[in-house]
């Protein structure tokens, strides 16, 4: 028979865990709302930029643009956007698994750029080259961080350390659904939308305009990936913590039942003892 004192102690401990998971869930929910708003706010800019870049790519030979010219890939780069912290269900694990599968299938030499502690810690222990790593992006990535990251990626690409850059991040669909994915970043291959019938004047020239736009295009891609990844992380954490809170409630119920049974059994035993004692005196 379970010991009453032990049961009581376990119930108390689970209850305090439940308090923590519930608080974490609520914090994640608040942060998720903010991250979602950021994702939405970034969309108009990205769409317009995509449209203009697409149009220009149709008008200018991409080979003349260092950021758009494809070259022989001596080293493929993967930028892994994981979180700094765990306790987010399968969020980090799913993304790391996708990255690892891709790296194993990759025939060309490959290297990683890690963003977030989890990805760095995992791949540091394995035979994978990490060219840069970033941590402490925080819960609300801002444009300045995205610019800095994009700048460094562009630099790695232009100096020839990496001949191709791909983003590995988690796409946010809803609090319940986040899908890890790999998306090419450099060289830029914007879908050439072609001319929309209007004859544009480019000042000073199409090539110059494109040259000014491509770095921004990179920045916004990185910014969007960061935002999606953060929204996914908060979503995953919220769901995981919600489950944990529910599981804790279930366990408390079960243990409370056992505790009550144990208490009842103890009372019955005591009564039996009293009755037996009284009988013995007769």
């Amino acid at each position, binding site marked *: 028979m379970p010991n009453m004192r032990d049961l009581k102690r376990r119930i108390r401990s689970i209850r305090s865990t439940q308090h923590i998971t519930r608080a974490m869930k609520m914090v994640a929910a608040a942060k998720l709302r903010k991250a979602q708003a*950021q994702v939405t*706010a*970034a969309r*108009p*800019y*990205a769409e*317009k*930029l995509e449209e*203009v870049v697409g149009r*220009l790519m149709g008008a200018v030979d991409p080979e003349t643009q260092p950021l758009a010219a494809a070259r022989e890939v001596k080293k493929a780069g993967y930028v892994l956007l994981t979180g700094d912290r765990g306790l987010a269900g399968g969020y980090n694990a799913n993304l790391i698994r996708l990255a690892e599968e891709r790296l194993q299938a990759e025939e060309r030499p490959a290297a990683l750029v890690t963003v977030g502690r989890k990805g760095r810690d995992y791949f540091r222990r394995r035979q994978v080259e990490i060219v840069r790593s970033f941590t402490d992006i925080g819960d609300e990535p801002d*444009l300045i961080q995205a610019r800095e990251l994009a700048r460094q990626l562009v630099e790695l690409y232009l100096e020839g350390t990496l001949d191709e850059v791909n983003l590995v991040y988690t796409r946010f669909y809803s609090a319940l659904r986040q899908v890890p994915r790999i998306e090419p970043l450099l060289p830029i291959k914007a879908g050439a939308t072609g001319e929309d019938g*209007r*004859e*544009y*004047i*480019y*000042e*000073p020239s199409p090539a*110059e*305009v494109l040259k*000014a*736009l491509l770095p*921004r295009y990179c*920045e*916004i891609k990185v*910014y969007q990936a960061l935002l999606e990844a953060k929204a996914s992380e908060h979503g995953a954490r919220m769901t995981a913590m919600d489950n944990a809170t529910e599981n804790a409630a279930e366990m408390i119920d079960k243990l409370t039942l056992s505790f009550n049974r144990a208490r009842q059994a103890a009372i019955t035993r005591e009564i039996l003892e009293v009755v037996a004692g009284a009988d013995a005196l007769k």
Partner: protein
Amino acid sequence: MPPLQLEVITPERVTLKTEVEDVIAPGILGYLGILPGHAPLITPLKAGVVTYRRQDDGKERLAVSGGFLEAGPEHVVILADTAEKASEIDVERARQAKERAEKRLRERPPGLDVARAEAALQRAIARLKAAGEL
């Protein structure tokens, strides 16, 4: 001629969406004015002041720190790196930024990123001008 639809968009938000009579923007080759009926145009922008006029309203100003502009007969879209309306500008901060950048450019400490200091100076000047402080 119908009025122009002006949109100023940054990666963080849509700063402005309004109908205007004309727009003056800091193009990479110099300030350019756009009236309704403009030919389709795309040009990068420098840090500077965007001035626009709403119907029977006075002129209003906006500080941008680079980006680019797309114009058509009925619309102007400005994709700015940052954009602030005159009322949102922190004048004190801009003034400090201007002094800091000027000092750097004057003293030229070793390892100074001149282009960056210049850009910071231009941004600060744009903000002060837009706020009407310069």
